[in-house]
């Protein structure tokens, strides 16, 4: 027993946290895919899935079973090993940011002092997965999609970093726990509205979702970087995309929308988690709303928007923030 008692607390904390996180990832994907279809349906005067389960509730679960039962086809001239690694690469970094996410005052696996940087680093690994997938597929559409993804992510990583940096300047810490703690008085969204806007727009681009879904533009590139993927490998990319949505929305919640702060709800003890999830899902609803409203941008428009508008604006914002904080 002594042996167990002497183990550092992280020894238990991290496996438990990871188990919870992975179940959260799967449940989130199930919910989001269902919501996406339903919301898309209603925005087009349709009903969305209705047949499997009550109002189609089980549709996503059934689809997941279908994907699992499908054969994993590796194209003849593809680079087999890279081709197989790419979906895992897409999925793993998407899960890791949850380790530092402050869901509630006591619900955070680890509060490392460079939380924001850690999340950004992990989120940008996703690009590598896309590039590996596109390269290994040995398919012109996949390669074009991957190339687009890389240039898009370089263009949009910068505004994300700069806008988060403005928030970090105000708080004076990279730790997500500190950033949320700071917002007890006033949400950073009110102090830094421009940074929030820039962050949110660029993070939609980071997740490769419409209107910035050029890497998988189906009308031009069949399915872009995952053209050659089938079955569970495709499902992992899909899962990665929805997890990434959750990650960027929860960063936005933690950094700009006050994290778990909110007036106590009837479920007093859990109200902070409820607040966090409510805000996060609201942001994800916004993303779905964007997707079913805006047409896809052209590639030059995409890059122009980032280099001509988002980056200059976030730089100016950062400069002003720095001056104000210093004064």
């Amino acid at each position: 027993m002594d042996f167990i008692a002497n183990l550092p607390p992280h020894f238990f904390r991290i496996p438990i946290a990871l188990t919870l996180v992975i179940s959260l990832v799967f449940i989130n994907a199930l919910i989001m895919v269902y919501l996406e279809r339903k919301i898309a349906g209603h925005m087009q005067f349709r009903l969305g899935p209705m047949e499997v389960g009550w109002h189609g509730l089980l549709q996503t679960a059934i689809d997941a079973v279908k994907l699992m039962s499908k054969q994993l086809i590796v194209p003849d001239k593809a680079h087999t090993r890279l081709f197989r690694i790419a979906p895992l690469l897409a999925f793993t970094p998407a899960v890791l940011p949850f380790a530092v996410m402050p869901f509630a005052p006591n619900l955070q696996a680890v509060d490392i002092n460079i939380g924001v940087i850690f999340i950004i680093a992990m989120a940008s690994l996703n690009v590598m997965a896309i590039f590996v997938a596109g390269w290994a597929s040995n398919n012109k559409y996949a390669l074009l999609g991957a190339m687009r993804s890389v240039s898009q992510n370089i263009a949009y990583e910068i505004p994300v970093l700069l806008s988060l940096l403005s928030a970090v300047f105000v708080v004076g810490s990279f730790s997500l726990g500190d950033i949320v703690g700071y917002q007890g008085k006033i949400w950073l969204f009110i102090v830094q509205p421009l940074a929030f806007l820039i962050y949110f727009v660029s993070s939609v681009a980071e997740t490769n979702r419409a209107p910035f879904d050029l890497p998988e533009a189906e009308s031009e590139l069949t399915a872009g970087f995952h053209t050659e993927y089938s079955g569970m490998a495709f499902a992992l990319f899909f899962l990665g995309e929805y997890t990434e949505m959750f990650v960027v929305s929860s960063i936005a919640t933690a950094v700009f929308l006050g994290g778990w702060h909110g007036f106590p709800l009837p479920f007093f003890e859990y109200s902070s988690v409820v607040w966090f999830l409510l805000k996060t899902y609201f942001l994800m609803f916004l993303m779905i709303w964007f997707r079913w409203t805006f047409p896809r941008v052209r590639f030059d428009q995409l890059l122009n928007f980032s280099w001509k508008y988002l980056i200059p604006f976030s730089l100016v914002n950062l400069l002003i923030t720095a001056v104000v904080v210093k004064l």
Partner: protein
Amino acid sequence: MKKYFGELFTGAKSLIEGMIITIKAFFSPVVTVQYPREKNIIPDAYRGHVVMVLNEKTGEHKCIACGTCERACPSNCFKILTEKKEGEKKKTLTAFYLDFTKCSLCGICVESCPVGAIEYSNEYNLAGFTKEEFHYDLLKCLKETSC
């Protein structure tokens, strides 16, 4: 500089307008009809295949077996079988065949009938594996109220 901010402003405005349209659509009623469970209301003017009209008073068809419709039909869809019974002046109808595979729903038969014995149905759920499934005996249809 003016163009730079102008583009930003008009762009943002158009995006917000678009979002207002979709959110309105989101909260408006759906137009989907869940077909096998729900059915559309068929308008009165709908032209389904021809059926015989039931005479409310006698509970019989109104056809006088004159054969006008048979002759009027441009596609020769009808085949009318009649019989003259002993001691009766008029012919009686024994079978009224319609080959719906040839019908163009032109309506000449309905127009030409002197007593208004036939009309369009509003039957649209038609599917079959053989041509013969669309050869109806309208007289039987009237009695069994099915086809």
